[in-house]
Structures are given as structure tokens and as C-alpha cells.
């Protein structure tokens, strides 16, 4: 055995892989598909295009680096307990794809089925939880209304005092709730796509999009002009800015959402806990840190600075739920830009430009949609047909007044 280990250590092929993706090459003059944004979404679209549709002449362009935008800034929550039939069906398929992701990639994305508990502090919340539980169960998603005794068993450390500012009176328990390592999701998709011939070009910013007679013909980057058969924009946090380069206005306001992480603790919190009334949610990572999120800035901004105001709001809320956290030290804080739509659902699919596809409007629900979004957008780009599961989310819904209202089921941000 020691000789075997020595041989492995000295082998030229060790470490097996220096990096997830091959070194960058020169940009070609033309690609069949140009994907703007190398986050989880952009790389998953490339992956499924290559894997299922045989489209491999693809460039994924990013002005920064792989998974360096909102893929790295979200709080890694996976769940499907939404309110509308369209929303629940869509996110349910995403959760299903997440469950098989580590097998699919051949490496561990650290998917953990922890469950998610949303707290009710008033009667109105209980009514909406009943509604969500019924819709969820009807569509095969595990959601149920739970009482205080069950909450105590699920989260023994939670402050269930009846003299709290907002006492907890019930909960919505979602056993399908989960978390995964968000960076690994983008790495896995990028690696799988590059193995099949897709090119990843980091530090390549799309500065201008050429549209002629309603069709995209090329994108201009800081590394030169690239002709293209079609373009997909997958740039959460910059949807309006990139869309406008193609002449497309979107129903989006961009707000920063602030989050923070405490020092590590021993394992003490299994599920993800969310309080819409206190505007806070948290879970414990496998490293032991508590990720605390939910503070949305009160006005639109393209700036990921942190503010004391928002951090105070998060701290006040989280110490009400878990008083021992009053002693916790904050290790890191950050913000991500959320592209909020009026109905809290994404804008996906066709755009007013014929061969330009939108993967936009990912407010606070983008990470959990990564796999299903990639799979369905790839089908759309390859076949030109809009998959039924994403048809309700098309931009045209606003012109028909057929919004998919998920405001009440969108965690704690607003």
C-alpha cells in the first residue's frame, strides 16, 4: 500500500486535474451559440446543449470569472414550496435534478436534504401556509402545516417563547428543502460542457450586441467581434443592462440583497429556517457557519456594498429567533444584486429579438432553478420550441396580464 500511494503521488497525472476547465484559447470568429454569463445558469445551458442536443460550437463569455457573480453570492437554498401551479411545477423539477447532480457530474456538489421550515407569526401567514401546503401536496411536493410542538422537535434551539416580540405560532415544513455548494454547481456544469467541446472565455466582456432586422448577428467584446447563430443572456444582476444592449427593456428593478456568515459552531441546526415577518432566513453550512440572509436594500442599486442598517436588521431578527447568536461574531458579509420582477417570477424564453433568448429576472430564486433552467433553455435554443414548463414565464405574460404571483412564497427578502 505505501508503494501504491507513493506511485500515485509521484505520477505525472497527479493531481488528476489542475483546473475544472481547459485553458482559454483565442476567440473564434463565429459560434453557433454565444452565452453571456458563466454562472450556474450560463454553464448549465451550455452543458445541456452539448449533452442532449449535440450543439457544441458554443462560447460561454463572462466579464469576470466562472461562477463569480450571483452564483457565488446566493445563500444556496433549494426548495419548491411555492404558491402557483406554474412555479411549484418548475421548481419541483429543479429540486429533482439537484438530487442527481453529484452522480451526473462525477463529483460531490454537497447536496444535503435538510428540509426547510418557514415560520408563521400571525394568522394571515397560517392561511397562506395552508394554501401553499395544499397546492404543494397536489403537485407532489412535500409541504405541511406544523404546530409548535413539531417545530420544537425540528429546531430545538429556536426561541418559542410566547413573550417574544413576534411569537412563533406555526410553521410550513418542506421536507424537500435542501442546500448544495453553489460554486460546485457552476464548476460541474462548466467542466461537463468543456469536456464536450464548449469554450469558456473568462475576462471577456460583451460591450455591444449587433442586431440587424430583428436578429442578432454578432457580439462585440473587449477581445474582438464574435459572430453568432444565437445569443442567450444569463446575467443575473445585470439583466436590464445587457438586455438594453440588444434593445430590450425588461420589467425589472435591481436591488442588492445583503447576507452574512457567523463564526463556525458545532452542528446545531439541521433545517433551513425562514421568517417572512422578520425578513430573515438562516441555515448552518457543513463547515458549521450560520449563513444569515434576507436583507434587501430599500431602493434599487447596482452596488454590492454592505450597510450597517441592513446588518442591524438581520442581527436583530436572528437574535430574536436564536438568542445565543447575540454572542456570535460575523466573519463575512456581502451583497448580491437581485433582478426583481413585479410578480417575483423569472423572465425566461423568447425575446423581441428573434434569435436572442432571455434567462433573466432572477431575483431571489435563481440558484434553486439552475438545473431546470439550463435544461429547458437548452431545449429552446436547440429546437426553437418553448418547453411547456417555462412557457408561463415568458416576457409576453406581462402584455397579457398573466403574471405568476410568487410574492408571498418568496422567502423573506421583501
Amino acid at each position: 500500500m505505501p508503494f501504491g500511494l507513493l506511485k500515485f503521488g509521484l505520477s505525472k497525472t497527479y493531481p488528476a486535474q489542475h483546473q475544472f476547465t481547459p485553458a482559454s484559447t483565442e476567440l473564434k470568429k463565429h459560434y453557433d451559440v454565444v452565452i453571456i454569463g458563466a454562472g450556474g445558469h450560463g454553464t448549465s445551458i451550455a452543458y445541456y446543449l452539448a449533452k442532449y442536443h449535440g450543439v457544441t460550437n458554443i462560447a460561454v463569455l463572462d466579464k469576470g470569472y466562472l461562477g463569480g457573480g450571483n452564483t457565488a453570492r446566493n445563500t444556496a437554498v433549494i426548495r419548491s414550496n411555492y404558491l402557483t401551479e406554474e412555479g411549484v411545477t418548475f421548481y419541483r423539477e429543479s429540486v429533482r435534478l439537484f438530487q442527481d447532480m453529484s452522480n451526473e457530474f462525477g463529483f460531490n456538489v454537497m447536496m444535503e436534504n435538510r428540509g426547510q421550515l418557514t415560520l408563521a407569526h400571525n394568522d394571515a401567514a397560517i392561511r397562506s401556509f395552508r394554501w401553499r401546503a395544499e397546492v404543494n401536496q397536489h403537485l407532489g411536493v412535500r409541504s405541511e402545516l406544523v404546530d409548535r410542538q413539531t417545530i420544537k422537535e425540528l429546531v430545538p434551539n429556536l426561541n418559542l417563547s410566547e413573550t417574544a416580540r413576534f411569537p412563533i405560532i406555526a410553521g410550513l415544513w418542506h421536507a424537500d428543502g435542501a442546500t448544495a455548494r453553489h460554486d460546485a454547481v457552476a464548476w460541474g456544469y462548466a467542466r461537463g460542457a468543456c469536456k464536450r467541446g464548449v469554450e469558456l472565455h473568462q475576462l471577456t466582456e460583451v460591450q455591444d450586441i449587433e442586431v440587424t432586422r430583428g436578429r442578432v448577428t454578432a457580439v462585440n467584446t473587449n477581445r474582438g467581434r464574435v459572430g453568432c447563430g444565437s445569443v442567450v443572456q444569463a446575467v443575473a444582476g445585470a439583466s436590464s443592462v445587457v438586455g438594453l444592449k440588444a434593445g430590450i427593456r425588461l420589467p425589472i428593478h435591481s436591488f442588492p440583497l445583503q447576507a452574512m456568515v457567523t463564526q463556525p459552531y458545532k452542528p446545531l441546526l439541521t433545517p433551513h429556517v425562514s421568517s417572512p415577518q422578520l425578513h430573515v432566513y438562516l441555515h448552518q453550512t457543513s463547515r458549521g457557519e450560520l449563513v444569515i440572509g434576507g436583507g434587501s436594500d430599500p431602493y434599487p442599486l447596482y452596488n454590492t456594498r454592505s450597510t450597517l442598517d441592513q446588518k442591524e436588521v438581520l442581527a436583530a431578527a436572528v437574535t430574536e429567533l436564536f438568542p445565543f447568536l447575540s454572542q456570535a461574531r460575523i466573519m463575512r458579509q456581502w451583497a448580491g444584486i437581485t433582478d426583481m420582477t413585479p410578480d417575483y417570477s423569472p423572465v425566461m424564453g423568447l425575446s423581441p429579438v428573434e434569435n436572442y433568448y432571455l434567462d433573466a429576472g432572477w431575483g431571489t430564486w435563481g440558484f434553486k432553478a439552475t438545473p431546470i433552467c439550463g435544461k429547458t433553455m437548452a431545449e429552446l435554443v436547440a429546437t426553437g420550441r418553448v418547453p411547456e414548463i417555462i412557457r408561463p414565464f415568458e416576457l409576453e405574460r406581462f402584455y397579457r396580464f398573466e403574471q405568476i404571483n410568487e410574492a408571498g412564497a418568496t422567502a423573506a427578502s421583501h
Partner: protein
Amino acid sequence: MKILNCPLNGPRNIAEFSYGGELHRMPDPSKCESREWVEHVFFNENKAGIVTEWWYHNASSYWFLAERNTVTDEIIRTFPASDVFKERVDFSKETGEAQE
């Protein structure tokens, strides 16, 4: 604490105010196409840069306009809506020119 200079009440904590949306031209509801109205209601420019937008002082129910940089988070200036709207907007009128 971030300070917003209210044209009516002077410099106040920004927590006392509410963001009220981008300033854009309202099409005449009695004349415009349905699609144009939808875009007015739901769509935004959502610009990264200097924008002009509505703000509201919650305590005094006062609406005013602000120029703000959405990249640097700086408030450039605030001014009363009367600087832009020289005449009173009559929403009860069926016809007439499109209003700001």
C-alpha cells in the same frame, strides 16, 4: 446612516423615505395602445448610472424628485416636482396631451 436632503424637510435619515419609481412619461391612457400602457406600468429602464426618480417622505406625505447614481450609491440632488411639472396634471380629463 444615509442622509437624503428633502426639499421640504431638509436633511433626514433615508429610512424616513420611500423609493417611488423611475420618472418616465405617462402615455395618455385614453389614446395609447395596450402594449404601451403595459410597458409604462411594468417595465423599467433600470439603468446603471444617473437616474431621476420619485421619492416620498413618509412622515409628511411629500413627493419629490431625486437624481441618484445607482452605481456609486450617491444622491446627486433633490428637487420639488414643480421644477418639472409646471402645470397641475388633471387625471380626470379624458383627452389632452400626454403628461410627464
